[in-house]
């Protein structure tokens, strides 16, 4: 994602001043397609890509709903629809203008509420070099929702609803927008030459760091690790739902990466968008196949949950640079993502960090890999700057998240009680089961 242009209104207004007669005024006020076409096409791109990324919220919900036990499904769905909605409101309130503050010191500027274009805005008053504010705002806000979804999956089955949502308020309103402004808002990392096209680091690693901090503070689910240190798997309740969720995320990713071209007004731009689609798809396929083969070889049986994570890791890996690589480049970058997942899921378990859906391997570890992989196909990127960006986002998000989780833990408590956890959050926190007929009729 390149930096938004800030050539706001004002360009066209000079032409409007001299209006000697009505006929002449109409001539002057009717710009041709060359002038308004790119604005229309890019606005359309943001709307369509935004719909697709919005649908990723559904993908996350289904993936998480399938990988938690049936006694926690209602809670997981509640968290998903609530976090999306909270993110939408927070991003309007301060997030969007904090992330895109225009001219600022490059590190930190808290913005105000988002204000849309006027109803029926005239071409002369629109940002013809870019897109409508509504489409840009919507496209950006569905990204921040994806970041929050990453956190909900990792912390599932044991975190209380309200402390989780309190974290989401700060993450989506303040933390993500501040760190996002460093790169996409034209801040210091963008000045330094850091490259992250659609957000391997800015979106996915940020979610992963926040999730990692939360998983450490929260602790593992009861029964996940035995006293003698063995890992006790807790299988998910519905792998069909988890697979559906993964396919939905895969679909949504075309909007995530394709829309991040941020322009569709030229042959080059629209062709690039399609190039991004093809590369994105290839990386996901490679990640899935890699996990399929690796689990067959290592464990004698393929593990579907790892294949699903592998596809997502492939997607995260290609997100930092989905445009420049060849299809073969996308293939091997995605394949490495699949390898990362298969090896880091058991590694986290060894550290007794309980990540219910594999969000940390998929979004954080593959995100770091994808951000490094930019240097192989994008000549403008350097390893040093990529590592600087990874470290900056990691330090800020991990520390800020850690502090926030500890504050929440001290002030209101973040974890349900032992009995509540064993009986399931659905009945104890919500009094509502996702599948009531199974036990009652």
């Amino acid at each position, binding site marked *: 994602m390149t930096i938004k242009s800030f050539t706001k209104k004002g360009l066209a207004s000079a032409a409007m001043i001299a209006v000697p007669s009505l006929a002449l005024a109409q001539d002057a006020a009717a710009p041709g397609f060359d002038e308004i076409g790119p604005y229309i096409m890019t606005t359309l791109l943001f709307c369509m890509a935004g719909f697709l990324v919005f649908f990723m919220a559904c993908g996350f919900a289904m993936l998480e709903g399938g990988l938690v036990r049936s006694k926690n499904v209602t809670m997981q769905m509640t968290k998903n629809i609530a976090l999306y909605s909270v993110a939408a409101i927070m991003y309007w309130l301060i997030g969007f203008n904090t992330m895109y503050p225009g001219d600022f010191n490059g590190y930190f500027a808290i913005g105000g509420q988002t204000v849309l274009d006027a109803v029926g805005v005239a071409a002369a008053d629109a940002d013809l070099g870019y897109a409508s504010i509504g489409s840009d705002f919507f496209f950006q806000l569905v990204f921040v929702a994806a970041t929050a979804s990453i956190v909900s999956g990792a912390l599932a089955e044991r975190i209380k609803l309200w402390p989780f949502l309190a974290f989401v308020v700060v993450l989506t309103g303040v933390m993500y927008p501040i760190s996002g402004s460093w790169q996409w808002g034209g801040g210091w990392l963008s000045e330094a030459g850091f490259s992250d096209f659609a957000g391997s680091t800015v979106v996915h690693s940020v979610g992963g760091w926040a999730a990692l901090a939360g998983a450490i503070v929260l602790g593992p689910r009861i029964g996940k690790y035995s006293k003698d240190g063995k890992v006790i798997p807790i299988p998910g309740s519905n792998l069909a739902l988890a697979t559906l969720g993964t396919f939905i995320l895969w679909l949504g990713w075309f909007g995530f990466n394709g829309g991040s071209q941020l322009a569709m007004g030229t042959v080059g731009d629209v062709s690039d968008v399609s190039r991004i689609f093809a590369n994105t798809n290839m990386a996901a396929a490679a990640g899935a196949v890699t996990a399929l083969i690796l689990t067959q070889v290592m*464990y004698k049986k393929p593990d579907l949950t790892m294949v699903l994570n592998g596809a997502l890791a492939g997607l995260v890996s290609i997100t930092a640079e989905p445009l420049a690589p060849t299809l073969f480049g996308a293939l091997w970058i995605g394949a490495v993502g699949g390898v990362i997942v298969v090896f880091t899921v058991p590694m986290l*378990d060894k550290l007794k960090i309980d990540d219910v859906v594999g969000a940390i391997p998929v979004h954080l570890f593959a995100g770091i890999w994808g951000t490094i992989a930019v240097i192989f196909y994008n000549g403008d990127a350097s390893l040093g700057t990529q590592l600087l960006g990874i470290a900056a986002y990691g330090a800020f998000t991990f520390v800020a998240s850690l502090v926030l989780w500890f504050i929440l833990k001290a002030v209101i408590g973040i974890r349900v009680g032992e009995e509540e956890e064993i009986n399931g959050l659905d009945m104890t926190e919500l009094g509502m089961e996702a599948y009531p007929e199974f036990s009652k009729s």
Partner: protein
Amino acid sequence: MKLIIATIKPFKLEEVREALTDIGVRGMMVTEIKGFGSQSGHTEIYRGAEYAVNFVPKIKLEIAVSAAMADQVVEAITKAARTGKIGDGKIFVLDIQQAMRVRTGETNDDAL
């Protein structure tokens, strides 16, 4: 009257049902259960972590028949359910003290 309780491998249910209806058994109760016997459990891997499957899925049959028919039923189940491999299951035969058909009030052998 005898109650025959049999545990069998799930995929053998259809064969056992056919064998029993062939010899005139007119009803049975079927439950999906999990358990272990000599077969014990086995291990599987989920997301890189090995875990023991201590309880193996089985089908439990409960069949109430007249005392005269019990041996024939046991033989039919044994024949149909046997694969020769470990985990084929077990059959228990118990006495029934009383039986009642709810619809008509018939009792004992008439109720079976």
